[in-house]
């Protein structure tokens, strides 16, 4: 990926390679946050298997980061990979990825280590991982990084994945095409117009 970053800096940009690099990085993160769960599936039913990958949560993150006044997705992916490389070095592990790896160091980490890496870059001294040569200032992107955890949960547990073929369209054009997997996993019935219990309510008692 070194090569690709240089390409980027030279303004010579191979869009597909950059896309793969960014999306693979965010998939590795989203998968750590909301993984596939064979164990839960065994215990509670097949639907529990699915995670962020099936619901395009990484793509939601990229779309969200690129909707800020300064698009952040590429920069955030670079930061995650730089921090991951540092993390591997600190642990004394082999960090020198082969040329064809795409530079996605983040993917090389265990899910728990990916989250520890995220924690490093969102702490106050995490600012050192912001690569030189970015067009934006560290102060632009540092406050955005803690939002990743919230965005991941919003992307996964809200209706967004149910927008199906319209999910990447402008927000005004999205149409809910199906019930998100996440709603089925947690028993959320979706919006309804009123809540009634036959025979009336037993309202909260004062004493």
């Amino acid at each position, binding site marked *: 990926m070194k090569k690709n970053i240089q390409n980027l800096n030279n303004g010579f940009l191979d869009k597909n390679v950059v896309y793969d690099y960014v999306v693979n990085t965010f998939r590795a993160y989203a998968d750590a946050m909301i993984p596939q*769960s064979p164990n839960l599936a065994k215990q509670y039913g097949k639907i529990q298997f699915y995670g962020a990958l099936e619901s395009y949560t990484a793509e939601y993150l990229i779309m969200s980061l690129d909707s800020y006044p300064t698009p952040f997705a590429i920069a955030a992916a670079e930061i995650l990979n730089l921090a991951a490389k540092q993390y591997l070095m600190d642990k004394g592990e082999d960090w020198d990825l082969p040329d064809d790896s795409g530079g996605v160091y983040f993917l090389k980490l265990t899910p728990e280590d990916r989250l520890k890496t995220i924690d490093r870059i969102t702490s106050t001294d995490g600012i050192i991982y912001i690569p030189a040569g970015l067009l934006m200032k560290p102060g*632009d992107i540092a406050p955005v990084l803690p939002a990743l955890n919230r965005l991941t949960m*919003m992307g996964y*547990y809200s209706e967004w994945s149910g927008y199906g073929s319209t999910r990447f369209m402008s927000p005004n054009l999205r149409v809910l095409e199906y019930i998100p997997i996440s709603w089925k996993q*947690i028993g959320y019935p979706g919006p309804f117009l009123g809540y009634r219990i036959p025979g009336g309510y037993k309202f909260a008692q004062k004493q």
Partner: protein
Amino acid sequence: MDNGFDADVIVIGAGGGGAVAAKELGEKGLKVLILEAGPWYGNSKWPEPNANAGAEESSSNDDLDIGLLKRIFTDLEDDMNDAITGKFRWGPADRNLSPWLRINEKGGFVWQSAGVGGTTQLYFANCPRAYPSAFESDWPIDYEEMIPYYEKVEGTLPVREATGTSKENLFFYGAKQMGFHYISETNLTEPGYRLQPNGILGINPMLSNPDFDLENNQAVGCTLRGHCVNGCCIGPNVGSVAKRSTLVSYIPYALATGNVEVMPNSFVTAINTGENKEEGLYAASVTIRNTWTGEVSERKAKVIVLSAGAIESPRLWLNSNLPENKWVGRGMTTHMIDCVSGIFEEDLMKVLGMSDVKPYVGQNSAARLDYPGLGAFEPFGTSPGIYATMIYGTSQKGYYFQNQTTEEEPWDREGIIAGELLKEFMRNYQRTLSIVVFSDDDVNQKNGVTLDPERKDENGYIPIISYEISEADRERRDQLVGLAAELLKKAGAKTVSRANWPPDVCAHIMSTMRIGFVTDSNCEALQVKRLFIADNSVLCNGLGGPNPTLTTQALATRTAQKIAEKYFPANTAT
């Protein structure tokens, strides 16, 4: 107007405070122009408020359209509350444009919405009064003086006792197990639990009738469907929607006076001053930028009311180069909000007579426990995306597996819940009770809003929010969060998690333009005559912990009266 003014009074911002000031002034016969940065939902002059510029202004209740409001408020939480592209966001009406930037230095975020109704569009509508003890320090007015204004707002919204569902039953059960008592006073001096005083209309009486057609519901009243936060649109017309955001209460009341005009999509980028011998510096006009066209214009009035919210009000002051004041933007309080949540097993039956809590059912928060001296906390529930981000996705302590919990701590884990545990916990969504904790934080001049020296957007230099918690604040917060966690345990929770939010999360943003420090006791700026402040920024402190909107609205009612008395004496006969 033939006196060279565009209105008697210009109000900047149609949120929780500005709408109240406008209605009160309009009722006194004053011509009021409200300038609102965001869209106007449910007004037929903006049939596609997020897609097209629409009209310039509206001044009549005839323009309000409940059918349109129902189409826009989709109950879908990403559509409504996505912080970046949602209909409730701090950004322009055109959702293809980026949100407006704020920088939270400590990892927090600002939960605030532009638009007519402002953040009350999405608030839980909880309307407790401040603790009387909060007025004992720094406030230039007495608590007793506030009471008639509280009563007026409570009668107008109106505020009534909330209706609880199972989450409140379970919360009360836990509170009782801890030895707390039910309290029925309004002006609180002792700890206790109660149903929220909230700005939500009574329950639709037809709701328990199984034959009642909810699809074609034309009745007035709350239907307990759990979308306070995603935008309430339940009611036969806009003015009688169940949750009383100012979009459906004070704005329609203001329009009904025939004296109030509202211009949405109009971001005020400067307050312009004049100077004369008698008054010195005074507010003369405002500069507006249309968020669709970029067109810049100016509006003049005799008096200007600043109600842009506790971040934008100081930002506008600073961007307008108004006189230096060491309290402008400073002294911010946030209630250092935190969340705890507990998961219950199916033996919930014994307590509730049912097998789950259903956090998505009922008013988003219908009960509270007040603890003067520490703050307050309340059970809450929402649709799952917002719920997950609040209880599991926001922390200053990293991920749960990075934190060791000590014996003394009443929670079982702390930090962001991730991985398989997140899925396991969310699988128990239906049996999760969560509590949001508002702690009383001291005013500290170091905390608040400053301008970035370099970065600008189309509205001026962007605001930077810095907030640090003091040792005394932290102790109060930990104590109160501990009580909330203990309540969950006492109610029977099998496992309890503490989020530990960054204290600069801004959902209750207060005291950045403090009464008595930036303004006089009438909320008129000390250094700029004819400029009044009527939003959360003018609160003198964090009120002891209670949700701030009602107090801001009571104070705005009082401020409107003071404006009329001082500048329009002919209109104060009543």
